[in-house]
């Protein structure tokens, strides 16, 4: 048995770097923090690759073991209910280690160039290290409570990094929005955890996910409002996951989160934190599959709806980062669909494997898309497509790497996205036709909007730029090239040998008809974008006019934000907050109004003192007591 205790260092190194740069970073030159953060992460990256190699490839196995090299007893509530802090290694957590450290390292290197000269450079690196630590802690969690703690930590880091440009009001608004929305979702998560652990008497993933385990007999048969208690628990856990992964209707925070620096968008809001929800569902997959299949298929439908919905919105947006944000929503929806349609054991686990596979490839190509978007913004100083065009001459490396990522997301072979997306479609085809067609159509829309972006930015009209755009420096282009190579080749990793719900490798058959169909729809989307956007013409505008209200509705993201505002501002504010404010102002404050005036005039004070609110206080007190007496006398003794 290989000794894996070194894996503890993988999250610990970024944490130590965070403590050091957080405490002393301000005293040193900013670049010191940047270099320290990058160097620390490089070590974690190498260790993660080592762990990945040892775990998957060093020895041939029938079934991958679940290894817990380190588990420190943290709190023991009762003899059976205990909370540990530890490290759990299984195929998906090892895979996530590789994903997180790879993307984080690329973002660290890229930011050395992108964030150069920014105010708060060292603060940025300190937060990046803290985030990387928290994210690694999340994927390595041995129990659901530990995971919750790290959920909160990554949420806090995301909050801090979205608001990095805290002098911009829109950044402040976005950070608040992200915080409040995910906070509400986490509320569900916490309650779900409490219900689950109360009945099963454990927090441990190992015990929870053991198929055929008898820990669920306490909860079987309990139900609340017609839905079983376990379904409530797992549904609430999914609510937390949906908040982090920005599934409909919690998706509204993610597009606004683009106010953060672009490398942050690449790391947190494209590749790692937003897939934490997918990871959570995968982690608890056996519980969903064996005990609450109703919730599992619900997850699939939420994913399917989100993916189509977000892809449609992406067509009409002009801010390139927002297009990518909606695209992220859509792709995460794909992963959820993969999990939602999956079965357990052998080839039935195709959906699960495909969801994880897509998580892996998506991390590579979506991080790449964001980083190239950063390079574009860096060059033209604008986020809007209207200000761009013909950039392929000025930014050759960015152009080629963007194209690789665009082909990957469109599912064109041999790029990475083709393999993972095709397998999700195959899994959906065999278990749920409705989800299959949704995702199939979404695939076409995906390649259309991404090539609309590509043609609009790199081709189209040649415009005159005030400053001639120039290619990004080397420390920004190297991560681009690395990720472009990854986006091109990682699809050839035989994932079905590595990841499956029951930890056993399985064989897949290729289905030529499905493959041809999925490539065709991808090409169709690209062709559509070619016709409309390759050369500047007035066709897109004509189509928009022809669609009229439909277009405007989509452009305004189906008015979901407005609906939220309506509910919170109009309904909650008017129906709840107003009456309370009125009560507060007239009943309570009205009686306390004197306080200011009283100190001015002593006579006023005496008058108030004798006829003031003392009696009222006493009255409320006695009335409260009597009310309670009457209620409970009737209730118990009556």
């Amino acid at each position, binding site marked *: 048995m290989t000794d894996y205790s070194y894996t503890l260092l993988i999250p610990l190194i970024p944490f130590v770097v965070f403590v050091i740069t957080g405490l002393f970073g301000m005293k040193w030159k900013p670049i010191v923090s940047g270099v320290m953060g990058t160097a620390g992460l490089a070590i974690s990256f190498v260790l993660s690759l080592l762990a990945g190699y040892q775990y998957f490839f060093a020895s041939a196995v029938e079934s991958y073991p679940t290894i817990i090299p380190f588990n420190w*007893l*943290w*709190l*023991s*509530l009762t003899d059976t209910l205990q909370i540990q802090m530890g490290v759990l290694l299984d195929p998906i957590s090892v895979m996530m280690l590789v994903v997180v450290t790879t993307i984080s390292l690329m973002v660290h290197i890229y930011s050395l160039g992108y964030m150069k000269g920014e105010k708060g450079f060292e603060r940025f690196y300190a937060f990046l290290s803290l985030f990387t630590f928290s994210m690694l802690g999340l994927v390595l969690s041995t129990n659901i409570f530990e995971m*919750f*703690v790290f959920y*909160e*930590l990554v949420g*806090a880091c995301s909050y801090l990094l979205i608001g990095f440009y*805290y002098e911009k009001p829109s950044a*402040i608004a976005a950070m608040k929005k992200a915080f409040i929305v995910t*906070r*509400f979702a986490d*509320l569900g998560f*916490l*309650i779900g955890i*409490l*219900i689950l652990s*109360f009945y099963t008497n454990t927090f441990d993933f190992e015990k929870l996910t053991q198929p055929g385990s008898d820990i669920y007999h306490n909860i079987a048969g309990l139900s609340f409002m017609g839905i079983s208690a376990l379904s409530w628990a797992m549904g609430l856990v999914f609510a937390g996951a949906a908040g982090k992964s920005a599934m409909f209707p919690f998706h509204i925070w993610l597009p606004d989160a683009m106010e953060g620096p672009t490398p942050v968008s690449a790391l947190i809001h494209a590749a790692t934190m937003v897939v934490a929800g997918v990871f959570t569902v995968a982690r608890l997959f056996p519980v969903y599959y064996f005990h609450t299949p109703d919730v599992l298929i619900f997850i699939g439908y939420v994913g399917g709806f989100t993916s189509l919905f977000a892809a449609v919105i992406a067509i009409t947006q002009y801010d390139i980062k927002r297009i990518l944000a909606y695209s992220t929503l859509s792709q995460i929806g794909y992963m959820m669909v993969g999990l939602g349609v999956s079965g357990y054991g052998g080839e039935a686990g195709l959906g699960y494997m495909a969801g994880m596979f897509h998580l892996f490839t998506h991390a590579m190509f979506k991080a790449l898309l964001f980083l190239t978007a950063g390079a574009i913004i860096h060059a033209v100083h604008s986020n809007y497509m209207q200000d761009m065009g013909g950039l392929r001459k000025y930014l050759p490396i960015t152009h080629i790497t963007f194209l690789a990522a665009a082909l990957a997301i469109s599912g064109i072979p041999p790029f990475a996205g083709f393999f993972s997306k095709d397998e999700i479609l195959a899994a959906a085809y065999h278990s749920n036709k409705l989800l299959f067609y949704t995702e199939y159509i979404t695939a076409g829309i995906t390649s259309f909007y991404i090539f609309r972006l590509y043609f609009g930015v790199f081709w189209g009209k040649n415009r005159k730029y005030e400053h001639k755009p120039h290619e990004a420096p080397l420390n920004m282009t190297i991560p681009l090239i690395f990720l472009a190579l990854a986006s091109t080749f990682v699809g050839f990793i035989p994932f079905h040998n590595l990841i499956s719900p029951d930890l056993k490798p399985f064989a897949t058959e290729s289905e030529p008809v499905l493959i041809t169909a999925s490539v065709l729809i991808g090409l169709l989307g690209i062709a559509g974008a070619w016709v409309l956007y390759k050369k500047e013409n007035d066709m897109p505008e004509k189509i928009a006019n022809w669609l009229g209200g439909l277009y405007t509705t989509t452009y305004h993201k189906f008015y979901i934000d407005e609906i939220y505002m309506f509910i919170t501002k109009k309904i909650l504010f008017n129906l709840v907050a107003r009456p*309370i*404010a009125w009560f*507060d102002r007239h009943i*309570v404050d009205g009686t*306390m109004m004197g*306080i200011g005036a*009283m*100190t001015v005039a*002593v006579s006023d*004070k005496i008058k108030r*003192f004798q006829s003031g609110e*003392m009696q*009222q*206080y*006493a009255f*409320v*007190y*006695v*009335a*409260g*007591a009597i009310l*309670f*007496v009457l209620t*409970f*006398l009737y*209730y*118990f*003794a009556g």
Partner: protein
Amino acid sequence: MTGFQTILLLRHELLLIVAAVVIIIYDLLLPAEKKSRIIHFSMILFAFVLLLGLIPSAPGELFGGSFQENKLTGFMKDILNLAVLIIFLQSGGYLRKTENAHKMAEFFVLIIFTLTGMDFMISSGDFLTFFIGLETASIPIAGLVAYDQLKSRSAEAGVKLILLSALSSGVLLYGISMIYGATGSIYFRDIAPEITTSPLVILGFIFFVSGMGFKISLVPYHLWTADVYEGAPINITAYLSVVSKGAAVFIFAVILFTVFKNIIHAWESVLYALAVLTMTIGNLFALRQDNIKRFLAFSSIAQAGFILLGIMGTGSLGMTTIVYFILIYIFTNLAAFGVAAAIFDASGVETISGYKGLYSTNPKLSLVMMLALFSLAGIPPVAGFFGKFFLFTSAGSQGYFILILIAVANATVSLYYYLRVVKAMFIDKNDQPIAAFKSSPTMRISLLICSLGIFFVGFISGIFEYIMSLSSMLF
């Protein structure tokens, strides 16, 4: 039982009485111009009281069962001593003001006397000792609230407190007399088997809860809280919200668990209603306060509602979560009050809008305040999160999930107003923020203790397990 064992059982109370007498005598001996020496003298003296109180003693009872001392009550008294020491450390700046020069000793002596009353109350084995302890604790507090007797607000607050407190004590005593009438005893252990859901007992019980509800400031018995907290000197407000409330919650839970265990379903539904009302109303009023003391008053009302969730758990788990929460609450609330006191002593500002831009001039104080507010709001990984989490677990162990849902929703709402203060300090711009100042060394020591407590109490799992081991001996 030998005399030494008796002294050991009464060590906390005797130490406090001795300390109070020593301070009075020392004050008499000091010449008028050197009176301020009493401040450091009392702080050091009380540190010894805290240390000597830690001497272990075997459990036992005195005065025919009227006085019960065991490991858990001893621990509770120790943490109250710690809280009082922290408050003493924080009050130097306030007491040095010229108008207080002639009455510094009173401040310490009165606090020590009220604490003695609370210690007797915590250890009471019958309703009479309980009531006398409670009154010994209440009456000097009114004097403390009116400590700024030349300021009308402080004087008014003192009068309000004494009058309303008399009302609540009357109701409480009335309730006790009914229970005595129904069961024929004042001893807890004799009453417990006689308790039934007869109308007389229910009536007595509700009056008892009403009396305790006043001390813990549960809605609808809370109306005094905001006025008194605002009018009292800030260090006294801290004392009221932490020590006085902590002691009352503890004995309240003990009496519910032991005396009223026969009618558990009755008192749990009373507490259910009180918890929902208290959390929700406390939160809603905290939303729009600008005065920091009123703000913390409503926040402490809401926190009292959360504590009731711990009581709902009953038994050793319930008791443990309450004591654990009180311990965390001491560090958290005293950190917030300490910063507010330091700012008030240096600049006279006590409004949240006055705190704008504080981070730019006093970054360390702002950080301590932020830590305290995060802990009050229950943001992991600081201690307040664990305190709340265990309270929820306690209520969960009895299956009160709807109540937990309401509590979590309230906790989420509370985030808003706690973060509002953080925002004022860190984000809001201000052309004339409070000028940079250096607080006294004792204040800084107290804030350091509180910050360490907030950071580490949650992570050191041994503390929770230790309290659990103490309370599982009893329940």
